[in-house]
């Protein structure tokens, strides 16, 4: 081991020194005690390096050895089923092999090619049939110069629309939008294939509409994610900030033609609307890990003898998720609780534990029931 420690950083960033500071009985114990005795002039430096180590040393989220073993085992199991890597020169080799095919193989290959062409023709026909939503969209905007933004299957892309709304288009995505939105336009309309995030610039006069094959999303000035789904996944919309309305394509146009407000669902932050093709219904739920709407999340909420109504109010303010409860049930219910860096659902669990209640997520709302809390002054301090 190097014995040159001339600066605070040399010490603070030395693994050996750190191990010794944090765990006095380490293997290097003798070395460091010795070194410090031999370098009385560096006492301050040592103290300083120690302070840095204590300051830097955070609580680690660690997995147990067993959990790591399990993860490694799963990963290795997946490798064994992995496809073989296809070298980059495979194309050339493929062409050569085709020429080398013998009679019957050629017939089969030709048949496969024929089938592929047939399929392509069918897709071409579908693309151009009147029922195609994209074609309808482009037809409606034929007077405007359309821009087509495409991402390939390896990259995503972030860019601004003419109104300076931000779009982050996921892999293998396509977004069609007019090159220019005149200031008088009454609607800002885009067509999306694939997944994208939108951060829409506020403009009350011109709602922002995202059209997809199945859904239409309407927003004023908010940010949200649209997954417009291939056949294997369900189309879904997730709200990051603000509110958006989501409609089924059919409902939207049916209502529009008779001048009624279309039936859709309204989504709040951290809520997700998923469309189930099979039942034709919407499912509203919360995302797995709700996050605070603010760029700077508040991770040290401390309540001491606070009415539980206020605690819920604060959570609703931070996360935008509606919390429902029986006003009378919790009228006199107070709670002392410290909410740190944990997840939203951990917050709820902590509060419910303190007030002897429980919660459920119903239709994207949190519903709290706390019959035991009536008249009580609240749970004890929770640390």
């Amino acid at each position, binding site marked *: *081991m190097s014995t040159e420690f*001339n*600066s*605070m*950083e*040399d010490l*603070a*960033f030395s693994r050996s020194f750190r191990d010794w*500071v*944090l765990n*006095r009985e380490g293997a290097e114990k003798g070395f460091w005690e010795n070194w410090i005795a031999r370098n009385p002039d560096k006492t*301050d*430096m040592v*103290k*300083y390096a*120690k*302070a*840095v180590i*204590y*300051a*830097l*040393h*955070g*609580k*680690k*989220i*660690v*997995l147990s050895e067993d959990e*790591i*073993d399990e*993860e*490694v*085992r*799963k*990963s*290795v199991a*997946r*490798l*064994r089923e*992995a496809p073989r*890597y296809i*070298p980059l020169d495979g194309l050339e080799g493929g062409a050569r092999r085709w020429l080398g095919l013998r009679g019957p193989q050629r017939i089969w290959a030709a048949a496969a090619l024929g089938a592929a062409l047939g399929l392509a023709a069918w897709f071409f026909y579908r693309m151009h049939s009147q029922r195609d939503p994209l074609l309808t969209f482009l037809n409606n905007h034929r007077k405007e110069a359309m821009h087509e933004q495409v991402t390939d299957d390896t990259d*995503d892309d*972030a860019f601004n629309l003419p109104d300076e709304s931000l779009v*982050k288009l*996921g*892999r293998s995505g396509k977004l069609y939008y007019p090159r220019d939105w005149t200031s008088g336009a009454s609607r800002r309309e885009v067509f999306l294939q694939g997944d994208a*995030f939108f*951060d829409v610039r506020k403009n009350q006069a011109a709602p922002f509409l995202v059209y997809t094959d199945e859904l239409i999303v309407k927003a004023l000035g908010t*940010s949200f994610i649209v997954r417009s789904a291939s056949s294997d996944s369900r189309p879904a919309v997730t709200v*990051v900030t603000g509110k958006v309305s989501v409609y089924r394509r059919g409902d939207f146009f049916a209502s529009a033609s008779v001048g009624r407000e279309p039936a859709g669902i309204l989504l709040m932050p951290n809520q997700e609307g998923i469309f189930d093709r099979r039942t034709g219904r919407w499912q509203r739920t919360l995302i*797995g*890990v709700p*996050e605070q709407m603010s*760029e700077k999340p508040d*991770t*040290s909420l401390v309540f001491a003898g606070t009415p539980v109504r206020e605690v819920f109010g604060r959570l609703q303010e931070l996360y935008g998720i509606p919390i429902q409860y029986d006003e009378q049930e919790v009228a006199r219910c107070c709670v002392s609780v410290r909410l*740190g*860096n944990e*997840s939203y659902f951990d917050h709820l669990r902590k509060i419910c534990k303190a007030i002897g209640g429980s919660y459920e997520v119903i239709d994207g709302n949190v519903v709290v029931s706390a019959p035991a809390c009536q008249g009580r002054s609240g749970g004890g301090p929770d640390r």
Partner: protein
Amino acid sequence: MSAVNLLGEDLHLWNEYRGGNADAFGALIRVHYSDLFHYGTRFTRDAELVKDCLQDLFLELWINRETISETSFVKYYLLKALRRKLTRRIGRSRYTGSWEELRFESLFAGSQVMETGIMREEGLAELAKKMRHALAGLSKRQQEVIYLRYYMDADIEEIAEIMTVNRQSVYNLLHESLKKLKKLSARPSRFFLFLPFF
């Protein structure tokens, strides 16, 4: 156990993996899993997402093993690959902050300085607290540099590689951070005369 031997072992496993030895690859993953996971959880609180990303990453590395280069910095190669993967995954699912940048979550904000019996030394706890406060005030990038330097034992060049920035920027980020800590010292000049990082 010396660092040199560990590197040698890493290199051996890496070359075995490139030759198609799945057991060697498993052993390699095992060695670095804990560090990779910890780094990953700096960018998201969703531990399952990190595990998921790691699984995908390992699978990709395996499928492409024949085109992957020899490297003596296996750990940093993996950290960089994970960072890239998380950028894409989190960028795609959550879309907060700018597209390119991950939000490196502070280890320092909010939480208390670890109190231990060995901190009885006069003034140490107080100094550590002040430093922690100063650390929490650093930019996300500065915090990430410090984190990689401290927790992952990465040097300037390796940090530059992991974060895909140039060496000079890493040097500046680190230097600025240490300068802030230095201000907290009563007699700082002796300790910061030079920064022998390279």
